[in-house]
């Protein structure tokens, strides 16, 4: 509507714009609160003693504040959530480093080196990019079982290294680099591997960081595959651990929410840090 009327006088137009902005801001804030509600409720419940979980009125701030939910799951030897946390961290870290190494090596070859069958192989990789994950569950589970890797981190790590997305992503990046630096290195007598590690990889840092974050996030959050492979409670990662927690603490919502918070908060903190550094970077660019 505002746009159809020619401005009668600029002051009215500015005031209308201001009112529009305030209304919009109010709406955005309301939606923002809706987004925060589940997370705030998770935190609120996790700090409440059991007597306050089922009160007939909402208390966002616990009437009495307690660590007992956290302590009870931290001290429960049958649900070793600290171990799950460490397991998640180590497993996601290992997967991320290996994916970066394996995928950037392969991607560099597909982007820059010439070899027989290169385009056919890469086409084969691409063709599998859109295959639905469901078709791999049973056969890969059996492969892992045959290797004797059930209840073993190799059973979680190795299938993660077969992914095609990282190779595709890194190849796009390597192809966008100017060739001149690599050619100069080769003229100076560098081998292909030296050219890769000393010229191409340092230039690829931003792309490696992006792929690293995506891979870490996926590995940290992965639920179904570790649920299938890891049966020993000492070996679980956090997401399948939450399922065990839900089964063990029937209607102990304080403990469940403490577990959810322990899983969610590190990744949310990581997200906030990345948001801030990327917005600072974009401001610097501007």
């Amino acid at each position, binding site marked *: 509507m505002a746009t159809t009327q020619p401005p009668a006088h600029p002051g009215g137009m500015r005031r209308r714009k201001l009112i529009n902005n305030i209304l919009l801001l109010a709406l955005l804030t309301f939606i923002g609160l809706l987004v925060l509600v589940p997370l705030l409720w998770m935190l609120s419940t996790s700090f409440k003693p059991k007597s306050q979980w089922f009160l007939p009125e909402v208390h966002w701030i616990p009437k009495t504040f307690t660590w007992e939910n956290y302590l009870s799951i931290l001290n429960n030897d049958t649900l070793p959530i600290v171990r799950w946390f460490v397991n998640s961290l180590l497993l996601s870290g290992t997967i991320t480093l290996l994916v970066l190494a394996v995928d950037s090596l392969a991607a560099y070859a597909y982007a820059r080196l010439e070899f027989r069958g290169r385009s056919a192989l890469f086409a084969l990789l691409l063709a599998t990019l859109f295959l639905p994950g469901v078709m791999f569950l049973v056969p890969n589970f059996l*492969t892992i079982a045959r290797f004797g890797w059930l209840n073993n981190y190799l059973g979680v790590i190795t299938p993660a290294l077969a992914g095609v997305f990282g190779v595709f992503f890194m190849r796009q990046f390597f192809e966008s680099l100017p060739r001149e630096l690599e050619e100069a290195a080769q003229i100076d007598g560098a081998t292909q591997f030296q050219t890769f590690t000393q010229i191409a990889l340092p230039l690829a840092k931003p792309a490696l960081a992006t792929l690293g974050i995506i891979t870490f996030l996926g590995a940290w959050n992965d639920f179904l595959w570790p649920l299938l492979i890891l049966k020993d409670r000492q070996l679980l990662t956090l997401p399948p651990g939450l399922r065990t927690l839900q089964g063990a603490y029937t209607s102990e919502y304080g403990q469940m929410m403490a577990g959810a918070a322990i899983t969610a908060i590190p990744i949310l903190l990581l997200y906030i840090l990345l948001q801030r550094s990327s917005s600072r970077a974009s401001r610097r660019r501007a």
Partner: protein
Amino acid sequence: MAVATGTAEQVKQRRYQKRTGNQLVPYLFIAPHLIFFLIFVAYPFFYGLYISFFRFDFLRPEAQQFVLLDNYAKLFSPDSIQFPVFWNALGNTVKFVLYSVPPLIIIPLLLAVLLNTRVPGRNFFRGLYFSPWVLSAAVVGLLGFWIFQSQGGLVNFYLVRLGITPPRWLSTLPWAWVAIVAMTLWWTVGFNMIILLAALQDIPRQLYESASLDGATNWQQFVSITLPILRPVLVFVIIITIIASFNLFAQPFFMTNGGPAQATGGGSTEPVMLRIYREGFERNQLGMAAAMSFIVATIMIIFSYTNFRLFRTRE
């Protein structure tokens, strides 16, 4: 032009290939990835189909028996035990796609339009709305399990306060679906919003300026400028959202456990992924689970391929 530079590039590359020459080296570069790829992507593509021709109990592998199409025959014959539960679960997944995809397109589009203004703090809101997406499906499911509880659940607190008799969200229909869709929206709305917002920001502002000089209302501008330009991105978002919704698993697994239960042994919110999980990894019938997976995968591949073709020819 393009051809000329292409060949010049190739000549140049060949020249320095010759200098460094070792033909084995490129294969060493791709080998680590290719080995894992062959074992866990290429091989299971065929091995999965092969397994589906067996009656295969994981706990009694010695008793495995080649049955050719018997698993498929069971899945397609109405009087088998598997028939009602499998098709019920596949139907549930399709229902979820139908319930979840429209709001997963419309809400992100609205949010993207709201944020594609010069409102202060828009980057903050964009980051906030996206944030649930970084959580594990397990966290989302567990939060939904608590928020929609009849006893102590947050949603019912507020409904009672508004004077509404609250339903038992997680154990009655259609409310279980409403709860599952709501948690899914909370989780993934921000992802679609980011893609659509990026596309909106690429539309040149001059188009709107000249349209408003011509007297077009905001709504007319949205319909005749924004939507047509956004169309390819919208189609892309719709396709990836349908595929993502088709993979529904953790939300009902945590929130309803697939229930409310049905007389056939199936569940009213049990998605097909959960049925495959139960058949293969709780009942240990991996041959049958492989056959189910193969049917589901075929449907998804046909869907993706048709969309890809449709999308491509219209472009």
